[in-house]
């Protein structure tokens, strides 16, 4: 396993047709952290992740370890060890679980390997299958998996991809209580060797597993610290946690195609 790296974001700005979705974010995630990003809808959480992974153009600076990420293409950023998941689980529905993982493991493969058939199961894939608990379903098409299983498969894909920074967008949305528990424990194990950032609306889940928390509001970082520190911050209470049923309301994930503007 390669060395742990942290994420260092400075004055990050993203705007869509004049609307500032991310408006000068400074954020530090230390190596091996399990950081939760929370905040109301439209706070800029997903856009932040989009900017870090190269999906949207941004200004400012994003350093991972010593590498500047901004300005690079998506697949090059991915190759420097950063992986992400999406609000709606995005796996290759027509391929089997095994094939999904094999593809995730193979970005560095040479031409000849690519043109040959897969023989057997690569070792990293087998390990990931065990880790995310999908070994039984290795030959099932990913499209037939239950929602939670798809989320796990996505995490598994990040593991075989051997990323050093995982950016997870609402990994437990739509999961049962037991599944959330299992996912949380999985994330704790993973973060021993990698840096993990989780966007989440589920406050209970956040309280149970977060090592540190950043609260985003209107494109800026409102507050940062441990769960307890953040919960005690009056600014946060005002905009977010103060609302009685905020957690429940915000639990409904917005569809992926919603326009930010």
């Amino acid at each position, binding site marked *: 396993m390669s060395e742990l790296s942290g994420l260092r974001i400075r004055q990050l700005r993203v705007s869509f*047709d004049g609307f500032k979705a991310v408006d000068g974010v400074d954020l530090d995630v230390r190596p091996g952290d399990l950081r939760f990003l929370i905040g109301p809808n439209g706070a800029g959480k997903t856009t932040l992740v989009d900017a870090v992974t190269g999906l949207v153009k941004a200004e400012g600076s994003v350093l991972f370890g010593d590498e500047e990420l901004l300005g690079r293409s998506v697949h090059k950023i991915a190759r420097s060890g950063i992986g992400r998941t*999406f609000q709606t689980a995005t796996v290759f529905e027509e391929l089997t679980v095994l094939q999904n993982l094999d593809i995730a493991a193979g970005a560095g493969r040479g031409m000849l390997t690519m043109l040959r058939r897969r023989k057997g199961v690569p070792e990293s894939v087998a390990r990931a299958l065990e880790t995310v608990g999908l070994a039984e379903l290795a030959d099932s098409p990913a499209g037939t998996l239950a929602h939670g299983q798809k989320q796990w498969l996505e995490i598994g894909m990040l593991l075989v991809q051997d990323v050093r920074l995982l950016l997870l967008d609402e990994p437990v949305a739509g999961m049962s209580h037991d599944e959330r528990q299992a996912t949380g424990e999985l994330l704790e194990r993973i973060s021993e060797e990698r840096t993990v950032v989780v966007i989440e609306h589920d406050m209970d889940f956040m309280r149970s597993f977060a090592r540190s928390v950043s609260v985003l509001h209107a494109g800026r970082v409102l507050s940062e610290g441990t769960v307890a520190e953040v919960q005690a911050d009056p600014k946060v209470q005002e905009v977010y946690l103060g609302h009685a049923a905020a957690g429940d309301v915000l639990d409904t994930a917005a569809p*992926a*195609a*919603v*326009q930010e503007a």
Partner: protein
Amino acid sequence: MTVILGQTFTGISIGAVLLLIALGLSLTFGQMNVINMAHGEFIMAGAYTTYVLQKSITSAGLSLLVALPVAFLVAGALGALLEWLLIRRLYLRPLDTLLVTWGVSLMLQQLARDIFGAPNVQTRAPDLLTGNITLIGGDDPLTVANSRLFILGLAIAAVVALSLTLRMTSLGRRIRGVVQNRDLAEVSGISTERVDRTAFFIGSGLAGVAGVALTLVGPIGPTMGTNIIIDAFLVIVVGGIGQLKGTVIVAFVLGVLQSVLEYSTTVSVAKVLVLVGIVAFLQWRPQGLYTLRTRSLV
């Protein structure tokens, strides 16, 4: 100087025809992303409507005026029927839609051949529309054809009507809602099915109107639609999908470009240059002149 001015005017008049043909597509292709290859046959239906109406209305001018709304209804009804029968099964499958509607266009052409005969048919234009207006007199007079002015006026009127419909009416708001986010629109209680069909009705109806206008400048026959349809699609692609203003600008730019190049080279070379230019343009702006930003992954 007269030449440059003259070609610019010619280009605008070519652009007006392009715009009128493409306008219906800006709704069905631009807003709804449906590649309807039978759009050209809806134009044909509009032209044949004029032909049929002239059999009972002898005044050429009156028949043309009557043909405009009737052709809108005829072509619109054909479009809504097509949407209901086939296209609603094919959203999200663009190439399948293209192939299926191509099959439809084959059948409509043959149907026209069987109903109206294989040869082209004739319509009479009102005398007013076969003449021209002299803008600059003298030895090399600069004239503009009345038929083209009529088409330009019609195109502008159609653009205004369409954009008002999209902006001001609740139907327009519903259409834009569905275009921007189908799921969300459905959740908010909009019947996407009905909106789709209405949008298709209007888009196809505009093709019918274009067909009426085309009887003033071109042939009326079973294959009249196939010759012009790709140009119309290109206007939308270059203008930017879902962007009315892009469609308008690009139609006129392509018209002027075509006419200027044609004057200095040949028709074939001009066509090839324009097509290659379009491909190059899309390298530069792959989403067209104006883009609609969404945060969609797919």
